[in-house]
């Protein structure tokens, strides 16, 4: 459940109907590369960012979205195309005659190319913190004429996360290992995902050795074995087919406490790599795992 109707103004239920707010255009919106002016309410939005896609549909702007990139697989009703967010083809994008293009990474001169064609674009880069993630949702709300719904969504997310944080037991000192791929790349608490864990009071074994690695250090099997984390989170279930079973077959890993107790948590790669509304679900999953691990260890 990734969207709760929480505020009085917003319509209840999963499917949001178009807002009937008074005209709030033109509006100035903050993107990664600066301010963007949106003249009119966009009706033909192309999203090249899976997170932005999730945000747009969550704030009720789904009907204004005409095309999303090939990695935008949530929600299922999002109009998927073969557009690539990694190697954007400006011509292909322009072919949809969008009035707003939202993207996350700009591998070339996507922004300026679109500008050259007279297409308004908004870049919302990977959020480094929760605050920025919330901010992006609100900006998208402004940009699409769903400011109220956006605000409501953010409030919901905030309160849910705060609830989870409050009920987490910071003194438990439960340690964890977060795995990005099967060559033991991990994340430190400086990363977005790492912060979520930190909020819940969990201790990241990669923090000690991750300094100077840009937030994504590579650990070694030995180090992980020696640290013997209480929890193992696998963010490589889709890309690399990892699971409790495969992990327990790694040399020496069968002796890890987390493996013997079954505290190996498979995460959805997609959810773990985005910064949209589903981070709430992610944090719930983490929180539950932490609670059960704490109980197991006790």
């Amino acid at each position, binding site marked *: 459940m990734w969207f709760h109707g929480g505020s009085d103004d917003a319509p209840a239920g999963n499917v949001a109907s178009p807002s009937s707010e008074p005209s709030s255009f033109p509006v100035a919106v903050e993107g990664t590369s600066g301010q963007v002016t949106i003249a009119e309410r966009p009706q033909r939005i192309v999203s090249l960012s899976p997170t932005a896609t999730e945000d747009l549909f969550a704030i009720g702007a789904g009907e204004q979205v005409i095309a999303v990139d090939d990695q935008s697989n949530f929600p299922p009703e999002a109009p998927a195309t073969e557009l690539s967010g*990694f190697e954007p083809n400006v011509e292909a994008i322009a072919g949809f005659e969008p009035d707003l293009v939202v993207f996350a990474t700009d591998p070339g001169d996507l922004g300026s190319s679109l500008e050259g064609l007279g297409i308004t674009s908004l870049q919302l880069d990977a959020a480094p913190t929760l605050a920025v993630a919330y901010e992006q949702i609100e900006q998208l709300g402004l940009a699409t004429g769903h400011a109220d719904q956006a605000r409501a969504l953010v409030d919901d997310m905030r309160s849910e996360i705060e609830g989870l944080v409050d009920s987490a037991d910071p003194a438990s000192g439960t340690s964890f290992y977060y795995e990005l*791929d*099967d*060559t*033991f790349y991990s994340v430190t608490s400086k990363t977005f995902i790492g912060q979520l864990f930190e909020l819940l009071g969990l201790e990241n074994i990669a923090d000690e*050795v991750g300094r100077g*690695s840009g937030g994504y*250090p*590579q*650990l*070694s*099997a*030995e*180090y992980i*074995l*020696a640290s*013997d984390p209480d929890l193992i989170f696998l963010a490589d279930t*889709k*890309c*690399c*087919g*990892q*699971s409790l*079973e*495969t992990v327990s*077959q*790694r*040399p*020496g890993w069968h*002796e890890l406490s987390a493996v013997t107790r079954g505290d190996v948590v498979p995460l959805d790669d997609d959810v773990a790599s985005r910064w949209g509304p589903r981070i709430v679900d992610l944090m719930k999953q983490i929180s539950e795992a932490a609670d059960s691990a704490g109980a197991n260890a006790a």
Partner: protein
Amino acid sequence: MSGPEAADRRASAGTSATVIGVALLVVAVLVGLLVGPVRIGAANVLRWLFSFGDAPPGMSEQQALILADLRLPRVIVAGLVGASLAASGAAYQAVFRNPLADPYLLGAAAGAGLGATIAVAYGPSGALELTVPVAAFVGALVGVGLAYGLGRSTLGGRSTTSLVLAGVAVASFLTAVQTFLQQQRSETLRQVYTWILGRLGTTGWDDVRLALPSVVLALATMWAVRRLLDVIEVGDVEAQSLGLNVARLRLVVVIAASLATAAAVAVAGLIGFVGLIIPHTVRLMVGGSYRSVLPLSVLFGASFLIFVDTLARTVVAPAEIPIGVITAFIGAPFFIAVLRRNRRAA
């Protein structure tokens, strides 16, 4: 001085090199077992070795586990891979009479890379630990088979040149297919890339079991024919006049070297330059006769790669530098030195 006396002199040069080689290997193994993010004292390691794996007092169960399940198999695999690549390089240099021949000459690398890519792209994602090595192994052998077949049949394969050319053609083709596949399935890029650079980070006893039979068989074969490798050094015509079945020897060597190389690539990815550095260094010590060069390449190749692997997991610990990067750093200047030596000699 001639006859038995000279033979003795020659033997003693070989003997001292052998002694050095064995000593170096022992040191390499000890260093490999001692070094790692987790500190386990030297005394503990030695006691552990001599008690055949029971944790001696003073060592935790976990430390013993790290030694037994991580470091020991890793050291063994590094040794096997180093020995395989060095011996195969030496053997190829002999049968192709080319000092710059390396184990990947006949398309083994390209075949292995393609096999690994296919496994990553189309294989069951949960079984990658098994499918990638097996696919790489098979791919390497297929690559060599194609090159050998092409060289023999269409390019008038009486000469080594046609085999080498066939190898180049097959390698180019297989690499092109691999690149195309990777473009189609771009999510495979990162995984195949890390594999290609060569790594032993996830090595365990499974890898030992996978590589050991092939490596032992192949090395034994090459060792057995080392005297004949000397004969083939005088060229196909003269070797035949001395009674040697040149084509058969070449085939046997290609099969053995490919088997060893395929096993090495399967468990460790593509590690370059070992097949060049080691045989040439050995030749500097004991001359060009393969009776010495081959066995010593096995010894020194094993030590070399164990040291390099230890370095790879120490320099940026706990992260690891791909082994192929380190051997390239050492190998590139070495390669240039060999080229210059050859040009001066020519």
